[in-house]
């Protein structure tokens, strides 16, 4: 443990991770090439080699990048729209019992409804297809941010609030100087989870896209029974989710210097 941060140790860890992924892919290849059908019918899957070959072809097509860009734009739009709204609502819900009772009961009612089942409603009420799609990605991001903001407000150290009050802070000053900085870590947590859920909902959302989007690509590949492409779509979505996740982590780290070592 004492050398947990040494260079050699870190290399060892990276190597272990690479080994893990190689073992995973090789196992998959073996299962497919030996046409294993029991207990599970792995033989039906496309092999990693097939997927890899298709991937190389796909990577050379411009349209693949359009798909990614389209989804990226939608998720960005949806989650960036969700951010201020969810934070605002989270604050007013967290700060007062009355708004909590009035608003939270409605959100609690809406929260467990699957994104995919919002499709019909989204199409009906939004004047544009793009609007409907962004609404669904918005929903994905909205609830995690809301829930985390509310939790954040509840967890703001009460000593800090009393301390600020003892120095004669007004309500607005409390909000600005204590609550808002205090919940920023929670907002980040919520946003990280939210953007993840947003990516998870991208297929549901883009089923109705009609043109571009990596979710659209994955689903149409499926209707074409092009399984290699479907798996490529899955991998791409997974990778994009991870990329967003890591990006936010980096931003968070640079913004929340004061937390650097507490969290570590």
């Amino acid at each position, binding site marked *: 443990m004492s050398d947990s941060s040494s260079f050699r140790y870190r290399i060892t860890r990276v190597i272990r991770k690479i080994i893990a992924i190689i073992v995973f892919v090789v196992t998959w290849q073996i299962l497919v090439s030996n046409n294993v059908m029991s207990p599970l019918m792995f033989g039906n899957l496309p092999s990693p080699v097939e997927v890899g070959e298709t991937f190389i072809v796909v990577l050379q097509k411009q349209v693949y990048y359009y798909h990614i860009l389209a989804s990226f734009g939608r998720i960005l739009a949806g989650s960036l729209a969700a951010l201020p709204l969810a934070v605002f609502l989270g604050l007013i819900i967290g700060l007062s019992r009355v708004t909590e009772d009035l608003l939270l009961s409605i959100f609690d009612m809406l929260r467990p409804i699957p994104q995919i089942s919002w499709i019909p409603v989204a199409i009906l009420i939004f004047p544009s297809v793009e609007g409907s799609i962004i609404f669904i990605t918005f929903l994905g991001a909205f609830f995690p941010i809301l829930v985390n903001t509310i939790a954040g407000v509840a967890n703001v150290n009460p*000593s800090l609030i009393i*301390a600020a*009050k*003892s120095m*004669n802070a007004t309500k607005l000053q409390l909000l600005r*100087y204590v609550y808002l900085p205090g919940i920023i870590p929670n907002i980040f947590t919520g946003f990280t989870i939210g953007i993840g859920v947003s990516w998870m909902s991208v297929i549901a959302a883009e089923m109705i896209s009609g043109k571009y989007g990596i979710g659209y690509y994955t689903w149409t590949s499926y209707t074409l029974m092009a399984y290699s492409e479907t798996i490529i779509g899955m991998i791409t979505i997974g990778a994009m989710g991870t990329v967003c996740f890591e990006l936010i982590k980096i931003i968070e780290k640079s913004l929340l210097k004061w937390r650097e070592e507490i969290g570590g």
Partner: protein
Amino acid sequence: MAILVHDVRKSFHLQKDREIIALNDVSLGVEDQEFVCLLGPSGCGKSTLLKIIAGLEQASSGWVEIDGQKITAPSSDRAIVFQDYALFPWRTVVENVQFGLDLRKVPAKEARKKALEYLSLVNLCNFANVYPHQLSGGMKQRVAIARALVLEPKILLLDEPFGALDAFTRMQLQFELTSICKKNSPTVIFVTHDIDEAIYLGDRVVIMTPNPGKVNAIVNVQLPKPRNRTDYDFNKIRDRVFREFSLVTETSLEYVI
């Protein structure tokens, strides 16, 4: 500024309609520029009393007067230092000290200058731009004290400010507090568990008992400051406080168990 606590009673409702009497008709007068130590076992209402004087809690009955004025809310005359420091983790040391000035809308430059001044008073100039989590407990406590002092309060309320420190850091801070008080001459109410500390610092030591919280005895400490702990008179007063305590301890034994 003189403080007059007049028949203050404070009760809390707990769940299932249980009521706790934290303070039972407490009366206490503190003179201008006096240093009073509140001493008493856990749960005897020391913090509650301090919060009522600060204006952060309302008494259930009775009232607190400051220079003859009844108080109802926090004011910039009074500053409180909490036992748990209550530093803002997202603000650097100097920004923490500045906090009260920011609330008062003092221009940023001026506020910073003043904050640094008070940081140097507690020997923390070199740590101005560090975040609280990078400080040791004693350093944090000094930041909290600087944050209170920078407001130049007429009344300083300290709630077990050295409670979590080891004997050595504690003694050093006690010494520093004495010199600061000499300079600024605020009225001070200082809550503590530690008998030696109370005697070392206080002009008077107020001994409280729990269940329900009330003032049990008041001991005058008429020794020149800074005091010497190994001094004969110091030990004599300690013996007296100990005796008062034994009584307290006996009556509150069932509480301790």
